[in-house]
């Protein structure tokens, strides 16, 4: 159980790590929007975006292998993108004996290029920002505090609940039960129900503990997350440069 060790986060002390989380969040979203808004024919722009991300990774001292391993999550989209040229309609070209749809090729390229850039940007964000800081950053960006609190508790109690689930499975198996086919679903469903009730009761106890320490409906602000103008400037350099690149290239290509 990777208790609390979140595989996406890579602790460090680079300039990127030190940026306030809300700046990085906004920069990532803005960068992704620029990428998505770029016309798919604008090849040099995509190359430029990739270079920008490489620059961020270098500044954050996140090795390429770390990013590559975590890009596996993109696989389903890639498979889908590769299928498009085969199933696409319209004008076709022959490549190595295969008849491929031109429109499908464009669509596939579009998906792969934009998804990859978005995924890499997100991986860099997660690698340089602790999960709880991401949530606090989101709260600074006006995400409702209640949602942030719920997510915080999920972060804290996820491993505990997984552990409880594992113990219940061991207890089932110790008495000779192993789920093999659909007829076993009712047994599993009862386990899930029991788990829900246990978690619910824990929630009540946690609430009592919170009340006992003076909780009155809002989490006290304990981290000073205010960002200096310079830090915002630094974070928005990434989407800013990306936008500039796109505009220049668009004006340059009739």
């Amino acid at each position, binding site marked *: 159980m990777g*208790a*609390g060790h979140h595989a996406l986060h890579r602790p460090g002390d680079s300039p990127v790590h030190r940026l306030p989380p809300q700046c990085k969040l906004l920069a990532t979203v803005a960068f992704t929007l620029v990428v998505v808004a770029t016309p798919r024919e604008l090849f040099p722009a995509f190359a430029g975006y990739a270079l920008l991300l490489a620059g961020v990774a270098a500044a954050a001292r996140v090795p390429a292998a770390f990013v590559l391993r975590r890009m596996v999550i993109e696989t389903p989209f890639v498979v889908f993108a590769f299928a498009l040229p085969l199933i696409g309609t319209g004008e076709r070209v022959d490549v190595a004996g295969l008849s491929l749809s031109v429109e499908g090729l464009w669509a596939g390229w579009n998906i792969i290029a934009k998804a990859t850039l978005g995924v890499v940007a997100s991986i860099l964000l997660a690698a340089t920002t602790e*999960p*709880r800081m991401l949530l606090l950053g989101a709260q600074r960006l006006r995400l409702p505090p209640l949602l942030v609190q719920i997510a*915080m*508790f999920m*972060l*804290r*109690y996820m*491993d*505990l609940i997984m552990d409880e689930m594992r113990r219940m499975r061991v207890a089932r198996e110790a008495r000779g039960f192993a789920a093999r086919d659909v007829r076993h679903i009712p047994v599993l469903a009862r386990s899930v129900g029991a788990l829900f009730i246990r978690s619910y009761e*824990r929630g009540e*106890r*946690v609430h*009592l*503990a*919170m*009340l*006992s*320490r*003076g*909780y*009155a409906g809002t989490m*006290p*602000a*304990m981290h000073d997350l205010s960002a200096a103008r310079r830090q915002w400037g630094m974070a928005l350099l990434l989407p800013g440069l990306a936008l500039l690149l796109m505009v220049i290239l668009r004006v340059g290509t009739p």
Partner: protein
Amino acid sequence: MTETLSLEVSRLAYAYPDGTQALFGVDLAIGRGERVALLGPNGAGKTTLVMHLNGILTPGHGSVTVAGLPVRPDTLKEIRRRVGLVFQDPDDQLFMPTVRDDVAFGPANMGVRGEELEHRVKSALERVGMLHVADRPPHHLSFGQRRRVAVATVLAMEPEILVLDEPSSNLDPASRRELAEILRSLDVTMLMVTHDLPYALELCERSLILSGGVIVADGPTREILADADLLAAHRLELPYGFAVPDPDGGPSRRT
């Protein structure tokens, strides 16, 4: 007299909403600086009593006073600062993503900020010997460490009285001893709810027995634990191999 009492409970009665009467008129007083054990079998009403001490439950009858301040809806905030409750399961008590944030939670709710908050967190963790884990998530700690951090979360609020619910439960012998050393080193009034009788003897000079919703005994721990009939009448037992000789019979031995 009131000024020197940390906790005063008088004629406290309580019935749960379903009608089950749990407390039938509890009277007790704890002076400042005392360490008192509240003994009682399962189902005696110990937890119900504890829930009254910081106003989570409201008495059906009677009153609770903490250092002269009565527990009432309008005093709850101050009462919860004065009464530090340490729950039995540290996973219920430690709900923040890091130890530091968790210890800061109580004082921050009271409006403490900045350097003063830092200082409170640091000194509370130092007192339980857990400063080195400040930046770790609670679920990375051992059970004994989590219990110690749970004590720190309450110490950071600088309570008038520390109330511990079964502090020795689920601890291995070494953690149990370490916790005892820490609790003994704290200069704070303490009410320890337990049925671990040797632990009560080790830490508390005075004991109360709660049974059937009333206090049935109040006296020096050694005398109470030496009274085999009293213990037996209230489903309390010393573990196998332990005996507390009558106080007049010389020093106690563990055989």
